[in-house]
């Protein structure tokens, strides 16, 4: 019986935890088996939860979110016979699969779309907290925008310094409005629940917004340009089916990240946009385009 442990955001964070939840549910539906789950509400519970699951013999045990790395390192050591998987973090142990996403690649594509869709030549980014993961989103987004339109200007805002930054839509809306006032007309939000405020104010101000993690195009058809989907659901789903220890990088090539095109944003995405994005995707996969990964040496250069 597999187990999944969501991080502080909770399994309905409109972000990667939720994506993970959907993956688990899909596995449940297809296999008809059940799984155990737990939502962490303070740091000490990460290890506690992983341990509890392990003691129950849950296998595999999937931890979602980079914060679970350090505790999984301890627990996995103590339970060498069990298999573990951690998402967004690296744990170098023989019984742990570390699943990483190349957010920069997906972000690169949405960055391109933003730049192409922008009439003002100004695009904006709204992050939750200023942490490496978010900077990686931002870094990829900016590269993509520049790639599509070298003269493009990008503005970036971070929401806050406390975890409330991930669910403060009102503030998200203010950040977006501020960017709009500065001339931005396409905004990409990677800020969990805060993003909902961003998308809303984009709708209210007749601007374009880009969703993140799961496909959020349906939220406001007509103003949601696209979403940068990060297939945490796929990751959890495959992990539930069987863990392959080692580091797994999921990028465009593996379909781990991508842009979402569906009926909700069909009208917004011109064929020309689609053509260039597809080309870029191919180039990235083939390695013709090198997308800088912020994580490599903590800069976007």
């Amino acid at each position, binding site marked *: 019986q597999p187990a999944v442990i969501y991080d502080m955001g909770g399994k309905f964070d409109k972000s990667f935890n939720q994506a993970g939840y959907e993956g688990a549910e899909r596995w449940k539906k297809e296999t008809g088996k059940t799984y155990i789950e737990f939502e962490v509400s303070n*740091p*000490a519970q990460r290890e506690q939860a992983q341990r509890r699951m392990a003691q129950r013999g849950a296998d595999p045990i999937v931890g979602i979110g980079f914060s679970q790395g*350090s505790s999984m390192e301890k627990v996995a050591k103590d339970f060498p016979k069990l298999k573990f998987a951690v998402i967004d*973090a690296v744990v170098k142990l023989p019984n742990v699969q570390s699943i990483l996403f190349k957010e920069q690649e997906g972000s690169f594509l949405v960055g391109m779309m933003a730049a192409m869709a922008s009439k003002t030549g100004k695009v904006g980014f709204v992050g939750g907290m200023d942490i490496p993961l978010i900077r990686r989103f931002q870094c990829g987004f900016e590269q993509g925008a520049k790639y599509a339109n070298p003269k493009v200007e990008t503005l970036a805002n971070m929401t806050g310094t*406390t975890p409330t930054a991930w669910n403060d839509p009102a503030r998200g809306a203010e950040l977006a409005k501020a960017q709009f006032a500065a001339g931005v007309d396409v905004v990409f939000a990677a800020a969990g629940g805060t993003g909902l405020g961003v998308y809303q104010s984009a709708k209210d101000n007749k601007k374009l917004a880009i969703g993140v993690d799961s496909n959020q195009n349906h939220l406001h058809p007509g103003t949601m340009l696209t979403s940068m989907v990060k297939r945490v659901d796929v990751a959890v789903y495959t992990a539930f089916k069987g863990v392959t220890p080692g580091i797994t990088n999921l990028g465009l090539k593996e379909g781990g990240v991508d842009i979402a095109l569906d009926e909700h944003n069909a009208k917004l995405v011109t064929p020309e946009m689609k053509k260039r994005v597809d080309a870029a995707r191919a180039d990235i996969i083939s390695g013709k385009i090198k997308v800088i990964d912020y994580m490599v040496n903590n800069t976007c250069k």
Partner: protein
Amino acid sequence: MSQPVELPRWMDVALLPAVNLAIALLVAGGVVALVGFEPLQVLGLLIKGAFGSQAGISYTLYYATTFVFTGLAVAVAFHGGQFNIGGEGQAIMGGLGAGVVALALSEHLPAALMLPLMVLAAAGFGAVWGGIPGALQAWRGSHTVITTIMFNFIASAVVGYLLVNQLKEPGNMTPESRAFADSARLPGVHDVLARIGIEWPSTPLNLSVLLAIAAAVLVWLALWKTRGGYALRAVGFSPDAAVYGGIQPKGLVVMAMAASGALAGLVGVNEIAGVHGRLIPDFVAGAGFAGIAVSLIGRNHPGGIVLAALLFGALYQGGSELAFEISGFSRDMVFMLQGLIVLFAGAMAQVAAPALFKAYKALGGGRHG
């Protein structure tokens, strides 16, 4: 208006709280039933989870340790006439203090030097973070409620900056510092017990629990057995009388706030040195605010605070147990339960008193009482 009755001491300190807790659990049970769960099962699990196993007890004590620190912090400031709701920020700074010295020195120093150093650093950073609002209050009359709230935000900004830009280990996704060397790891209780040959499950419970007990005793002695405590309480009750008594309120206010901050800072020892072994961003997780309730439910007395902290610890641990055991019992229901229990056992503490008093009289107690 219902009269506050003067219950005999034993009822006041022992029976009344017990009754309140009972009422609280009853109401909570009712709500649980409403949400569609089996109240007895839930309450049973809550208690079993908190006290039913070695691991359970350990976790309860581990949480209680943190709450003792933040609770004492609030109480010390309170006796000096200050309302410190900055425990959150002071704890964060405490963690930073412990973390910084550990990162700097843990490779070079033995545990015997490292750990005391971390304790001092945690207390010191916390003291500064509490002392500044204290000083602003003393010399500028700035209300501590405002300043401490602001300092909470500032603290998380500072730590956030350091973790992301300075202390993070390169190439790592997580805004966490690298792990400390072992000399900077406060031994867990299970390690210690193992050394004397007792089998104990591995839990976050660490030697900080002793630190917490020591802190509680020290605070009690300091407040009620020493001249300093006498002076502090005098200032808290009546600054004018204090001045007449040759006491300098300003200095004491700063001292009180600094001591308060230091106590809150010790949370950093429990969490950073005791559990995580590295500096992480969100380790306080609301314990600073919980400390306010802990202190006031404990009537600002170390003894009461220890008990209240145990209650909160039990709620936290028992709560996570519920989330484990009962599928669909979300952590939010746990929050709600905790809130209700604080409401009935804490805020409505006096509601039952008159009834108790009647019963007591009816049983013929309290003649010439």
